């Protein structure tokens, strides 16, 4: 059995503590979303053990943390490639090329949505509205970096940059 306290690095714990401090002292659970993000950033994805470690640290039942991890779209409950690309294909983006941008990436990488390239470099996801429809086509790299106006040239540049 894994020692849960070893699952999270001291740096991660420090970041989680900063989140916990935002909420009333008896509401530590409020920090679970942020804590899971911090854990995912560190581990690359969220295994059941990692989720349990986060739950343990916040004094929650593991299932309560798992409910959160499985509810929100950007938690990865399976390993993903080094670069997770999420392309918005929702209607406002599609009107300005969102679906075509996704098709272009699929062809370039030889994978479909929810697949990872054989070298483990890229995972491709279909995204829902990112709230940046004026910048369409829009993509997210590893959940946190938003790329705007992704026409073929910009996509080529991004893929080349992701070593």
């Amino acid at each position: 059995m894994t020692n849960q306290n070893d699952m999270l690095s001291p740096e991660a714990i420090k970041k989680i503590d900063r989140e916990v401090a935002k909420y009333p002292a008896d509401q530590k659970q409020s920090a679970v979303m942020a804590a899971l993000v911090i854990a995912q950033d560190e581990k690359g994805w969220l295994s059941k053990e990692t989720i349990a470690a986060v739950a343990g640290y916040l004094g929650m039942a593991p299932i309560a943390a798992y409910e959160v991890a499985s509810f929100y779209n950007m938690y990865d409950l399976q390993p993903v490639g080094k670069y997770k690309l999420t392309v918005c294909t929702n209607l406002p983006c599609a009107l300005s090329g969102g679906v075509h941008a996704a098709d272009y990436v699929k062809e370039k990488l030889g994978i479909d949505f929810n697949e990872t390239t054989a070298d483990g470099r890229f995972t491709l996801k279909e995204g829902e509205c990112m709230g940046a429809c004026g910048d369409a086509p829009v993509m997210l790299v590893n959940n946190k970096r938003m790329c705007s106006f992704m026409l073929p040239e910009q996509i080529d540049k991004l893929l080349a940059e992701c070593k």
Partner: protein
Amino acid sequence: MALIDTINPLLTTGWSKGDAGWSLKDYEARGGYVQLKRILASKMTQDDLIAEVKKSVLRGRGGAGFPTGLKWSFMPKAAPEKYVVCNTDEGEPGTFKDRDLMRFDPHSVIEGMIIAAYAVGAKLGYNYIHGEIFDMYQRFEEALDQARAAGYLGNNILGSDFSFDLFAHHGWGAYICGEETGLLESIEGKKGQPRYKPPFPANFGLYGKPTTINNTETFAAIPFILGMGGEAYLNLGKPNNGGTKLFSVSGHVNRPGNYEVPMGTPFAKLLEMAGGMRGGRKLKAVIPGGSSAPVLPADIMMECTMDYDSIAKAGSMLGSGAVIVMDETVCMVKALERLSYFYFEESCGQCTPCREGSGWLYRVVHRIEHGEGRPEDLDLLNRVTDNMMGKTICALADAAAFPVRSFIKHFKSEFEYHIENKKCLVDPEVQRAGSGFFKAGAA
């Protein structure tokens, strides 16, 4: 996308310097935090403050359009523990105004929230920021640090006896958290499943305590309203539709982006500001208030003014002010298919009519789009929406139903053509060219 054009700029006065104008010193240089100082120095009463906001007829900018001052007045005075929450979980397809508010003028939101907290007697607040805009979350945290260091947040703000602190809570990808009680659940560290109402958040909100929750743009308008007076703000717009409003224009226009215009501005003017139709093509349809609002055909839309009452009269909703413009290259069946997939994907699963109904809507529209539609499918779709609307805890079921009903109502012949001929009325090559992704002539 920075602001391109505006009439009577208020909310966007600070946007002209782009990313170089968001910090505290810039905000103060353009009159920021003056209203907060005035309220604290004059010991303005909560009642007077709320009365001023009521006078402005500011209506909630998140989509529902509920009068803000009235909402604030519902907060129980005596409760010892109260909260103010900002809804920046901007995930309604077509809406991207709050992202730019966070980006170019986060302090206007902070000042608006502090003033709201003073008005309702809250000591603690949270801004729930959409998961996909991490850069804006970071910027807001930085702005909070600046405000705290300057004494605008924390204990005894600016030497007064008023204390309030504010933090940012980052979402992580769930449309349903834009629903206010789903959002509160999410801050509590749970699945974002909406709560039964009543009780409303003013009585039972965050951690079960009285809570005022408003949209980002609503809070951002507060300092401007107090600066110019409620009546002057109201007069910028039209009766019952006070002030200016940010419109996010997306789709087939030459210059997609955010535009701030007075309420009551003709749609034709807004379209012109957005550079007109891309490639000079013909306007086919507009979704005037975010993907949940019923679609309107071009001729009806061109007669509308951009305010709650005009759009409602035309049979749709102003919603969040997200104007999705579609030209003649759009297949309406394919457009609806994508929206229906969105609601199916984002239904939280709590209520059966929504969980199952949104799946039915998507699957049936999908089969029509893919040449497997049946003559009875349009009736079936309408019947499914009948069994969804008004039968669930929150409005997501209605939001899934409105596009289906309105697309079928206004573009029925296109759906019938699809069912009969098993293909799009609009040539696939024309559709492909419409997105502008491929350069003309390229493969």
